[in-house]
């Protein structure tokens, strides 16, 4: 975020200006302009600040507090257990496998969607028939609710369902699996569905980034006799760097919080093979009323996201801020 501190703000209401308020004609100078400005700021900021405090800050602090208690959400919260909830989560196989699943999804989402998204964006970034239509179509899955997309995919992936039928039809019948029923396969099935759902976002963002690459560069490269691949590798991808890195960050954060799609497709099953931190949290919290324990899981989810975000910031995004500052 750019903070051009000095250039932006107007100076405080100039004292020399006739400080007539809109209503009366009388020169009201009862409030000094400094006070007046304070009141105005208060007027503008307080609704948002109040909403933010009540529904964001307080619940987050509460999560930290609850996490230290053994509490079922009813009755007094008086069973202080210190860090026991955290110890329990970190030594619970289901939670640790949930973390592994989230990390797998973080990594594979980027590894799969980056080349695919880049390829499609490069493909669409040329004069071709129906390009506008293509751009709209590719973005459709992203706009659908995860729940809606999940329900449709749930149908598609049923044993002997449409996906199997299509594979049969093209001679790949041998590859059919219990897509959502086999613990060794289910996580990858979820990943494929997520790729379908979110590839459009990558494509749209990359396309926007590509518009920022000046045509002159391409023309110069062409004059120098560069091949298509050379141009993409030496010009397009490097110039797209900031866009790609920011997209990677969004993708990572989304993967760490994954809930809806998994809840619809598998509820974390079979045999916890697709459980994520968020599904585990809900499962333990509202479904089993272990609010203290679930809060500890939430804090861990936040801590893991924060650590990964910080690592990403230091090792990946730093290049951007350095260049721009």
């Amino acid at each position, binding site marked *: 975020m750019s903070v051009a501190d000095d250039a932006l703000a107007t100076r405080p209401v100039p004292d020399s200006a006739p400080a007539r308020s809109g209503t009366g004609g009388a020169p009201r100078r009862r409030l000094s302009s400094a006070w007046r400005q304070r009141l105005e700021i208060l007027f503008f900021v307080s609704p948002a600040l109040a909403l933010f405090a009540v529904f964001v800050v307080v619940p987050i602090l509460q999560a930290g507090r609850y996490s230290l208690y053994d509490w079922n959400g009813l009755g007094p919260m008086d069973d202080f257990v210190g860090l026991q909830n955290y110890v329990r989560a970190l030594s619970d196989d289901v939670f640790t496998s949930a973390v592994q699943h989230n990390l797998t999804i973080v990594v594979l989402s980027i590894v799969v969607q980056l080349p695919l998204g880049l390829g499609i964006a490069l493909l669409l970034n040329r004069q071709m028939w129906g390009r506008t239509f293509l751009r709209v179509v590719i973005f459709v899955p992203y706009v659908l*609710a995860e729940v809606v997309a999940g329900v449709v995919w749930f*149908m598609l992936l049923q044993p002997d369902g449409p996906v199997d039928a299509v594979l049969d039809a093209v001679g790949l019948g041998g590859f059919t699996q219990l897509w959502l029923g086999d613990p060794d396969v289910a996580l990858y099935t979820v990943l494929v569905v997520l790729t379908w759902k979110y590839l459009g976002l990558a494509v749209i963002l990359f396309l926007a980034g590509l518009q920022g690459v000046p045509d002159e560069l391409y023309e110069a490269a062409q004059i120098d006799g560069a091949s298509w691949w050379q141009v993409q590798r030496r010009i397009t991808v490097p110039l797209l760097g900031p866009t790609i890195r920011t997209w990677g960050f969004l993708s990572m954060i989304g993967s760490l919080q994954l809930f809806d799609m998994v809840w619809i497709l598998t509820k974390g099953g079979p045999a916890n093979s697709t459980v994520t931190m968020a599904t585990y949290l809900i499962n333990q919290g509202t479904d089993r009323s272990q*609010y203290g324990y679930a809060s500890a899981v939430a804090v861990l989810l936040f801590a893991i996201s924060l650590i990964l975000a910080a690592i990403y910031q230091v090792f990946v995004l730093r290049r951007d801020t350095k260049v721009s500052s």
Partner: protein
Amino acid sequence: MSTPVLAPTAGAPSTTRGGRPPRRRRSGVNAGGNPLVYAIALVVVAVTVAPVVYAVLGGFRSNAQLASEPVGLPDPWVLSNYTNVLTSDTFWRYALNSSVIALVTTAVVAVFGVMAAYPLARYRFRGREALFLVFTLGLLFPLTVAIIPLFLMVRDLQLNNTFWGVALPQAAFALPMTIVILRPFLMALPKELEEAALLDGTSRIGFFWRILLPLSGPGIVTVGVLAFVASWNAYLLPLLVLNDPGAKTLPLGVADFSSEHASDTAGVLAFTTLAMIPALIFFLALEKRIVNGLQGAVKG
């Protein structure tokens, strides 16, 4: 359509788009027309839309048709799946609930967001950057992290099964992004406007209402669209807060319907298709805004 100021590249049409230049050599490397390119594009489109088409067409088939041939065209076309959904109260109630919650969320975010962004952008006061930082830090905290206390708080405030119980927390969690997008937008409006208005005797609040608000229309629409889509598609918070069937939203309705009528595949597909339509129409109508908003967010 005016282009928002926030994302310079976002609205600007690419040099190659639009009125096609007379015989200008298309930026060489990007010359299209290769059959392979069209073949790949076709595959991408097919994979992208196949699930949606399957749902739409599946809604026009009977369960017997779906069972005997998982992939195929309706033969004959069956309308009853769709008419059943459209004549049921529940579908319309879910749609209404989704609409009201999304509209309330959007309205609260837009009004509170632009109000807060105004002094953060155009007043100079001590603690301004700190205040902005408080809101931006909110970006780090997804709703998921606070979901348990939120759920309990909403319950204690007796807001469960009400629109407010979903809309207010959603609006609160959408505020950081809204302010992060709107602040540079408001900063970019020329300072002279404000000086002229003040010289003419307009108060700062009058300036906000009469000049700033109309001018920031595109920015507000962008954040509004983002908030609306997020609310329309939301699942986790409504899942916990709305248990009463009369208060549920479309995503909850789709999930419920699909598990309650698991054997009625055609009915589920019809229901799901109809639930998709509002989002698709909304998207097609506001595609530019959504895309601009997302790009703006990325740049934020």
